[in-house]
């Protein structure tokens, strides 16, 4: 009976579909020739540039992201949160968006840098009137210059990281954390979180293990409604057990070491995925209770094998929970997929994915100790590793959800950036100094080889100079994008570092510029010469700041992330410049 009905329904739907397809005519595809000459596309790219550039840096402006029918509002200036929210009908926008998102997903940092630079390059190339191919060739060449300079030992905007002290790590962390104002942190709070991030990073490094080294990981737990200064880092794993029935007695927690079993399969008591198949059950047979019996068998085995902590990624049937608890076992359900991997690393347990066999002995893991910690309204169960383990938990507290979610994103980003330093123990000067310094270097270097390079690239000398100017100007515009309050950007003519003057200070009195440059490495002095960032200056070879100076940079950027961002920006811009037609299927 049921089958027949279904068939009829399906058949009628198919007929309907056929009728539909016969009646709707296919519209022809839309083709846009020379998309960059299209005013609408240019306006959209310019809007995207404004949108992203205005987020850039510690004084960047925030964006409220929400959907048109209400729903929650996200306040952010982070590219990894903002970009996924941007969906456009324009493939050009999506091309750039996906390219940047791909960079961010791998390197976490410098997404806004890449986006701003890429869009500036496209805009400049269009303005300069250079032919697409010439601009592309030039950009490629100049990118090569930058990359080889950045990789040089004597690169003037690179700092070798000193792992002997935490100072560089904290500075690196601080630069990232302070660049996101939606966290609403005071100076003291920023420093506290930066230190925690560095501490968490160090805790994930395994100690003195010869052979292959596996990095641990930091698990983040967030607590809303608490002061930021209450945030802390703990070795081991903290699981949220708020509201769950937990043993009140401390003594039951101290029979070390304890046996742990971990299920990745659901113990909810429902039938596993049937796919499209149909199971025929004779009436009078209660499938639910049969599955439950099987689950109880598993529970009994866990009791027999003296399991003390029973964890399931998904739901555990209340009857099983009741049984296990009555046997003095701590039960945790709904762990979630993100915590599975760290828990496996910590305990050495093998997640059990099936309910149809007995539990193998090697599936069991161990924890040394359990304790209960209270953070505001949240109760956490603290699992200590049985031996050396590189798992740690960072408990992040903030006053409200909006700020907390941004803080969480930023801390995860910081963790990834600190990890990148293991690959390449260097950092770049922050505060726009790397950009201005690179621009000055490219100007100087390319001036000295105008004739030969122009010939190699197959362009005229004036085209070459125009291309170089466009590239350098784009780099400098990224540095300028750090200023959002109408202030002026300057470059000094010795080190080519980036300086800013507040809008309300009389412009033109550059001689009064005291204080420090963007990265904090160079100090202003009356003998120094400055020029406006958008003015023409005679090219010069930017000097590296003295290496043995006791002054340490105050702002550092990730070397690996920025280098990749630079490449992504130029290559994406080149790709965009290379597009001749956009063909859109509008059906």
């Amino acid at each position, binding site marked *: 009976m049921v089958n027949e009905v279904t068939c009829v329904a399906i058949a009628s739907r198919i007929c309907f579909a056929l009728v539909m397809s016969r009646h709707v005519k296919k519209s022809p595809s839309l083709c846009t020739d020379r998309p960059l000459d299209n005013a609408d596309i240019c306006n959209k790219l310019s809007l995207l540039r404004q*949108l992203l550039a205005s987020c850039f840096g510690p004084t960047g402006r925030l*964006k409220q992201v929400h959907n048109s029918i209400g729903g929650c509002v996200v306040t952010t200036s982070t590219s990894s949160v903002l970009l996924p929210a941007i969906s456009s009908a324009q493939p050009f926008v999506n091309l750039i968006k996906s390219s940047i998102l791909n960079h961010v997903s791998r390197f976490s940092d410098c997404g806004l840098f890449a986006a701003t630079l890429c869009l500036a390059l496209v805009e400049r190339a269009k303005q300069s009137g250079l032919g697409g191919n010439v601009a592309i060739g030039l950009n490629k060449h100049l990118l090569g210059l930058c990359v080889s300079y950045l990789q040089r030992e004597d690169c003037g905007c690179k700092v070798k990281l000193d792992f002997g002290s935490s100072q560089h790590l904290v500075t690196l962390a601080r630069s990232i954390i302070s660049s996101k104002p939606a966290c609403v942190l005071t100076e003291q709070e920023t420093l506290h979180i930066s230190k925690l991030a560095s501490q968490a990073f160090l805790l994930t490094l395994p100690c003195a293990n010869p052979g292959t080294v596996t990095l641990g990981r930091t698990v983040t737990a967030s607590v809303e409604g608490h002061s930021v200064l209450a945030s802390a880092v703990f070795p081991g794993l903290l699981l949220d057990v708020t509201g769950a029935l937990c043993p009140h007695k401390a003594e039951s927690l101290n029979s070390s070491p304890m046996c742990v079993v971990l299920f990745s399969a659901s113990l*909810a008591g*429902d039938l596993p995925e049937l796919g499209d*198949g149909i199971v025929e059950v004779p009436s009078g047979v209660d499938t639910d209770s049969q599955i439950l019996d099987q689950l109880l068998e598993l529970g009994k085995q866990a009791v027999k094998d003296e399991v003390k902590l029973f964890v399931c990624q*998904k739901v555990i049937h*209340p009857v099983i929970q009741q049984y296990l608890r*009555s046997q003095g076992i701590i039960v945790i359900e709904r762990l979630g997929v993100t915590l599975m991997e760290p828990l496996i690393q910590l305990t050495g347990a093998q997640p059990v994915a099936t309910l149809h066999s007995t539990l193998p002995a090697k599936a069991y893991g161990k924890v040394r100790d359990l304790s209960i910690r209270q953070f505001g309204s949240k109760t956490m169960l603290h699992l200590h590793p049985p031996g050396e383990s590189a798992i740690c938990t960072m408990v992040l507290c903030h006053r409200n959800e909006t700020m907390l979610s941004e803080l969480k994103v930023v801390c995860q980003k910081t963790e990834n950036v600190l990890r990148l330093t293991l690959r390449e123990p260097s950092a770049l000067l922050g505060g726009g100094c790397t950009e201005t310094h690179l621009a000055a270097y490219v100007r100087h270097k390319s001036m000295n080889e105008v004739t030969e390079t122009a010939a190699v690239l197959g362009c005229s000398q004036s085209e070459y100079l125009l291309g170089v100017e466009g590239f350098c100007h784009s780099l400098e515009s990224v540095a300028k994008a750090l200023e959002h*309050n109408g202030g002026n950007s300057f470059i000094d003519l010795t080190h080519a570092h980036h300086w800013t003057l507040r809008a309300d200070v009389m412009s033109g009195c550059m001689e009064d510029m005291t204080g420090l440059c963007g990265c904090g490495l160079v100090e202003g002095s009356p003998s120094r010469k400055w020029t406006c960032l958008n003015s023409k200056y005679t090219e010069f070879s930017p000097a590296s700041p003295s290496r043995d100076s006791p002054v340490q940079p105050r702002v550092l950027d990730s070397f690996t992330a920025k280098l990749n961002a630079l490449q992504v920006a130029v290559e994406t811009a080149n790709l965009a410049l290379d597009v001749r037609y956009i063909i859109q299927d509008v059906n």
Partner: protein
Amino acid sequence: MLGSTVINHRQHVGLQELSALAGVTHSFLGPDKTYKFIQDDASGESALVRSCFRLFENLELTCAVGQLVHETIQAHQRVYGTGSGCLLFLAGAWSRAAVECLQRGISVPHVVAAMSEAIEVCEDVCRICSISIEGLGATQSEEGGAATPHGSGLQLSKKSVPRASRASCHKTLNISGQRKIKLSRHFYEAEAKTQPDQPEPPNITYLADALSHGCVDAMNLAVEANRLQSKDNQDVGCSTFDVTKVLTCVVPGLPEERSCVLPGCVVLLSVEQASVALRLREQPVNVALINGDLSHDFRHLGFKRPAGIQQVSDRSALLGSSPEEEWLVKVVALLLNLELNLILVSGLASEKVIQRCCGHRILVVEKAKASVLKAFADATGGVPVTYATQLTKHCVGTGAKVATWRELHESATAVNISARGNGGLVTVVLTSCVRGKLQALEDQFWACAHRLHRALKDRAVLPGAGATEMLCVRRLQKRAGHRSETSGAPTEAEGAVNPYRGEVFRLMADGLIDYVSTVMFNTGRFSKVKARTALRQQLQECNGHVGTAAKFSQVFSEGENEDGAFVSEAKPAGAPSMKVYDNLSVKQEAWRKALDLVLLVLQTDAEVVTGVEQKTAAEENLMLL
């Protein structure tokens, strides 16, 4: 085609929206609130509201700032239960201050830095002028009712000013250790030192009066609830108040004077169930606690119903009974077997179960709060289970009691369910002849209960009736320097760091003055202008004294006198002046959250709206990406 849209905010629209939203709630401030009607033109429905969070609950706000405000207020209300009006008012006032700063050409980072600094100044003032609740109001009787403006807290502090050493700055106020309040050198709790082990129990009546903020009846109920709960917990001093174990039961149709507090859990039941209750009275009954729904097809959260199951049977299905009937028979048999007479269900129970149980003299009570289940589990030894079929002897709680409290009308009877000791569970029965008022009465009661709970938890309170705000104003203005508002040159050494600090501080202080004057205006005894003039005058008078730290306490006490004056003027003529206190943690948190809102909105320059159709985007003049 759906796309994302960007709205650029060049005119600080967000701050203006925030200020406009805050404007709606002016009449909810202070002890003299007025009701507001919200009417839905489309459906014709209306709601009567008297508090900020109820207002937002009934408004459908689609703008981003509105959403942000709503989320903030909900989060605050969830934890503190009071103070959301203050939060929103200050968010509005300070967003106006921020707009003013921007119009004067102060850059966003400067505004952010200075405002953050200002809130720290205010929090510092709160710490300094917080008064320990221990022994509060004890001197009242000695002085024959003529209460000193500041209770005993200030008396002590005044005496100890000259003696206090620098070291005392970091002593905590309350040695018994619930909350650590850093003491300034001006406030030195001598008593705490002499009797560190035995903190004097707070004078609850006095404290509650001072925290009632005009809701005397509601506060009396809260005090009574606390007294009953403390009696249950053998806490002689009533020194804690667990609001999670307080329930409310609203009963329409009775005059308001009939509101009362009862130990245990009072619920309204149908006539049929009430008759079961009647038969169960005066005898200890066995109780089962069900965490979920009590029905045949209920399954625990996360259980997926199989899709592709087909029942195959060789006989006609009509011969057997339905699975529901089978389940019902099984459950009722189990309940009878366990000699259960009372079932508390956190979710819903199916009509059939309730009826069948009634027939067997088993009372089923639905929608029991988690705290009720927990209290009953603690008091009766019962273990909450998810399915009725899970019940065993071990899960059954014993010694629960059922009593009819009052027959209200033909269709409902109030029944009191209790257990030995109740685990601190008390029910506040709120009555009113006017149905539309019940919600407001309930809200009022909860606000009072939370205020009392917080005061006991903080072990400290703040001088109320605007006194704390005015102290903050004075401190902010002092830090800003005494200059006319137009001059811009910083005079203080610290001013060099942020040249606009003074201006921003003064604008923040104006926001607080705005708050106090609105509260005064709401009393109906002041015009807005008169209130402001009065406040400014007092500030000016005091400014003559300010200058040295040593004189601070003197100014402080004067401030108290004048604040006392607000209250006495606000009261009907002839009534004795009464002390008013505010909650320490609630105020600090509300201020913080208000500023957080302003700072987030201030730094936002664009909205990204997703899922906008091209047509509407063109109509609303949005930029489409």
